């Protein structure tokens, strides 16, 4: 449903000790939005994604997923989630794809993909397997379903990880530099899968250094610098005349993307 706000982040803050990494980030993702998050190393992109599904506990601010706010308690020791069950539920609605794939090494690819639906969502096994096989076919590794992660190339592992996240039927997909750990010749196969997802209308938040993806696939680009949103907008504007000086300098390092 276009027009529905899938993810809303209000004034998100995060400190590690005295080091303030996120200094108040706000962002909304409507249904079908594909938002590329760009920024230099250390600007807080990963921390931002990890705060959204509470792999890091935000120090302040609000996160809303599909209209529900993640309830936080503010005690003396800082802030913490009010309800473990709600955190688990929210995480099951957010698909996360990691830079390092993070597949479960002791399970086959098929087992990796059915694990969440079967044991977290408690769906019937036959249904889980049917959905998983469909997803594996979609990301192009149906023939690898009985292989273990160690038997796959990086690109195949990342596509399996995307299938694992999709199997949860997430409201929003979060990608943290999904192609940064891949050999250059394997980047394309993962980006193609992500592009297909975007075209199907999946709501996506993608931390990436792939300027061509940011420019050609996403409908919004957010540039983070030192824990704040330096600038954001449509790719045409961001990569065109409307770019902030800092963003212009940042993309200068990547050459001119097409």
């Amino acid at each position, binding site marked *: 449903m276009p027009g529905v706000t899938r993810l809303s982040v209000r004034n998100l803050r995060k400190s590690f000790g005295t080091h303030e990494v996120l200094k108040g980030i706000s962002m909304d993702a409507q249904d079908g939005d594909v938002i590329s998050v760009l920024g230099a190393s250390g600007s807080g992109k990963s921390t931002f994604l990890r705060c959204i599904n509470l792999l890091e506990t935000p120090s302040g601010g609000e996160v809303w997923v599909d209209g529900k706010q993640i309830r936080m308690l503010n005690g003396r020791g800082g802030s913490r989630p009010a309800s473990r069950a709600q955190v688990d539920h929210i*995480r099951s609605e957010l698909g*996360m794809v990691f830079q390092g794939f*993070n*597949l*479960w090494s002791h*399970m086959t690819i098929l087992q990796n993909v059915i*694990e969440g639906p079967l*044991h977290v969502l408690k769906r019937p096994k036959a249904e889980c397997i049917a959905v998983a096989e469909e997803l594996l076919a979609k990301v192009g590794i149906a023939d690898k379903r009985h292989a*273990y992660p160690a038997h796959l190339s990086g690109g195949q592992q990342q596509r399996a990880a995307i299938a694992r*996240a999709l199997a949860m039927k997430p409201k929003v997909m979060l990608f943290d530099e999904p192609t940064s750990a891949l050999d250059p010749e394997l980047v394309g196969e993962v980006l193609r899968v992500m592009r297909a997802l975007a075209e199907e209308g999946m709501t996506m938040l993608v931390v990436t250094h792939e300027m061509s993806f940011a420019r050609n696939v996403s409908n919004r680009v957010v540039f983070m610098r030192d824990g704040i949103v330096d600038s954001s907008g449509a790719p045409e504007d961001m990569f065109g005349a409307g770019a902030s000086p800092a963003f212009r300098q940042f993309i200068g390092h990547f050459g001119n993307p097409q």
Partner: protein
Amino acid sequence: MDFAFLSSTMVTLIRAVPTTLVLFSLSILCGGILALGITALRVSGNPVLSGFAKAYIFVFRGSPLLIQMFLVFYGLGQFGVIRYSFLWPFLREPIVCAVLSLALCTAGYTAEIFRGGIRAVPAKEIEAARSVGMSGFLLVRRIIAPIAFRHALPAYSTEIVLMMKSTALASLVTVWEVTGVAQRLISQTYRTMEVFLCAALIYLVLNFIILQAMNLLEYSLSRHRRPFAPGLRA
């Protein structure tokens, strides 16, 4: 070689194998369950609980098993609460004392082995599990325990073999397992070498079987570390 004597000795000793196996399997089972609890306390993050687990592990790994067994066997009756409790008819059985002390001791070692396994679970795989909404017992059961157990298996095999040999100590608290029966035979025949060689052979055979079983288990749990064979389905 006196084959007649050797074979009659063998027959007598083999009759004691069931007792050895009972000592072994009960202490591995009870010790394993206890070890799970101690491991849980040890990694709980609560300083009091993990302190208790550390103390437990130190005491049972740091003192001789034989002394622990004597303390259980001769010591429990000193406590009125135990002596007059409904458990006493049960606890004064030598085999119960032997199983109890073997289990308490192996639990200390096994808890450390399990903890090592847990430490070897990649944080990234735990994070991936959290990101699909797993936490608490589900996370332990589905992700942490299976990976940790695989890492712990080689060390755990060693512990199990050591336990098989430790059952011999039960002879000193009057349990008639293989070693105890061997000593009785020696006191009757004075043929130390032959009798002990037969006993050693029995332990070797038992441990050979156990090690084969453990290797098989390890092999079947490590498919993910072997080359992919498309024909072989899970």
